[in-house]
């Protein structure tokens, strides 16, 4: 922190404090402190007001939670109703004759079984490749010295500003020229080699690992690859989890590029398949909700399993500036 060039972010909570170990210090509410320091008489006087305040706080949060959750509930309610019931009953009502027929139709006739598999495969490949390539690059930028390192890093940073929509037209032309449109390669290649954003995020983390560890291992004759695999990676589980979560979510939900790159149903991904379902079935809400459900459910499960890591990861991306 003595360097005049220290970044502001590092002056804030260091990224690994609390975030990594889950021991974030709980901020003590100013009101509570106030209550503690006040003389007893005043404290007692304030109590009913505080209680009412807390109750209304929970009330607001409960309403907010309902607003967040109710679309998911409506998806399930609608997908489980036969179409005539959708027309005759309120969307808020429980289905009187719950049915899985719509799910079966979407799964088999509309091929969502295969589309789901496509999406899983593409997401897994993109995530594995991207996290691996980004880790290598981030480590090199953080801890290895080679001529041109700073200049190259600036190129990476500059490309981070390029919005998705700008590269879509030329990417289409490139893939067309290479005869890769309508292939899995078109879906995977643009994202497989690491993205500047993830590299940047990981590099910021690697820089917080003490340099001495790296140097000591080098003294003992470790190769760079072994240093990375055996010393750095075991210390970097938090950032690798973060990168993995970001890549999984963004490639699962990616829409614009798959929409343009692939127009054969055999290689469709869920988002594109769902949009196709919408243009085929218009307002057949049972079908559309079953399709939406199949698209959303895997990530909801992913979220349920990794919720703590996900919440932590998002805060990490804000803190690792």
């Amino acid at each position: 922190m003595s360097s005049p060039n220290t970044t502001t972010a590092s002056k804030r909570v260091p990224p690994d404090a609390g975030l990594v170990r889950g021991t974030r210090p709980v901020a003590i509410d100013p009101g509570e402190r106030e209550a503690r320091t006040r003389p007893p008489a005043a404290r007692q006087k304030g109590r009913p007001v505080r209680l009412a305040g807390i109750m209304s706080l929970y009330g607001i949060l409960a309403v907010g939670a309902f607003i967040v959750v109710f679309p998911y509930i409506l998806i399930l309610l609608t997908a489980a109703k036969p179409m005539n019931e959708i027309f005759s009953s309120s969307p808020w009502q429980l289905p009187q004759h719950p049915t899985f027929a719509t799910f079966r139709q979407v799964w088999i006739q509309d091929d969502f079984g295969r589309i789901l598999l496509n999406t899983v495969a593409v997401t897994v490949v993109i995530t594995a490749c991207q996290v691996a390539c980004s880790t290598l690059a981030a480590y090199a930028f953080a801890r290895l010295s080679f001529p041109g390192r700073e200049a190259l890093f600036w190129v990476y940073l500059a490309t981070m500003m390029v919005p998705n929509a700008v590269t879509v037209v030329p990417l289409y032309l490139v893939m067309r020229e290479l005869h890769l449109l309508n292939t899995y390669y078109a879906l995977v290649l643009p994202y497989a080699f690491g993205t500047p954003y993830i590299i940047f995020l990981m590099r910021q983390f690697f820089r917080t690992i003490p340099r001495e560890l790296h140097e000591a291992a080098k003294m003992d004759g470790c190769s760079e690859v072994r240093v990375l695999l055996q010393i750095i990676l075991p210390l970097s589980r938090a950032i690798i989890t973060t990168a993995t979560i970001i890549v999984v979510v963004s490639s699962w939900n990616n829409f614009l590029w798959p929409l343009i790159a692939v127009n054969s149903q055999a290689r469709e991904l869920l988002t594109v398949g769902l949009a196709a379902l919408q243009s085929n079935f218009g307002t057949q809400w049972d079908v559309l909700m079953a399709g939406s459900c199949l698209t959303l459910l895997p990530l909801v499960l992913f979220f349920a399993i990794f919720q703590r890591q996900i919440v932590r990861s998002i805060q990490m991306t804000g803190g690792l500036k």
Partner: protein
Amino acid sequence: MIQSFPEPVVALEGSTPPTSAGGRFRRGSGGWAGYLFISPSLFGVIAFLVIPVILVIVVSFFHWNLLGHPTFAGLSNYTQMFAHYHAVTSLYVTAYYVVLTIPVLLCASVLLALFLNRPLPAMGFFRVIFVLPYMAAPVAMGIVWTWIFDPRLGAVNELLHQVGLSGPTWLSSRALAMPVIALVSIWSSVGYNTLFFLAGLQAIPHELYESGMLDGASRLQLLRKVTLPLLRPTVLFVSITNVIGSFQVFDTVYVMTQGGPGTSTQVINIQIYDVAFQDFQLGLGSAMAMVLFVIILVFTILQFLYFRKRITYELA
């Protein structure tokens, strides 16, 4: 959408001491390994980012419908874009979307963060619930919200019907389509942005509150004089990254209105898609993409300048 992962703060990097590592390493340490390690990503950056950017600039000066050879068009794509293609309208429409979305999003996220920062039970539970929509595919959620706002059978008009009101036609109404889309965007990103504000709140030193209280400040005063000013960097970070993301909105609009009714939700990205991949006017589409690029660049530079300034300010 989030598509909006926060763009990291580029400016801070400018301040990295250039290879302070260089001196401490034995010369040549990691030289070949460095190149080896970055080579896959370097290939990716060049092939899928640098070359496309050069290509999009070049193509924007050509007429090309993919069938014949491209013909040089000079600036005519740019002039045509403003003359015929409602490019100005789509800029207004996008700006309108940004204006509808960002202020509400910011206020809601700050408020939620203030609530969730209280040391009360179940706050962790609420934090998790609010983040849930961040994982949801905007395409799927767009379709679900179209159903919720369906004029005849939708959940919203059904509730309005219960209290004796007849609801409007929402997405088929020129006036209401965009606010509904903005609402969906806000719904999906409030919880995500709240987490940034929570991190910002927890970084405020407690001593500030203690000394403020010793001076007899009320809670409202503490909020106004301590919390909000110290939250300003987070507010700026969140608003700029969200503005940049909002200018690129596509998925939600594509499934909810396809740009209609009329041109009322014809945002820039929808128009680029229509021109380039429905009409196959790739030159024109590229020219529009360049306009979007410039707009986003302006905001990125603003972000850059701000964080530059912030560093010097904090060191002063």
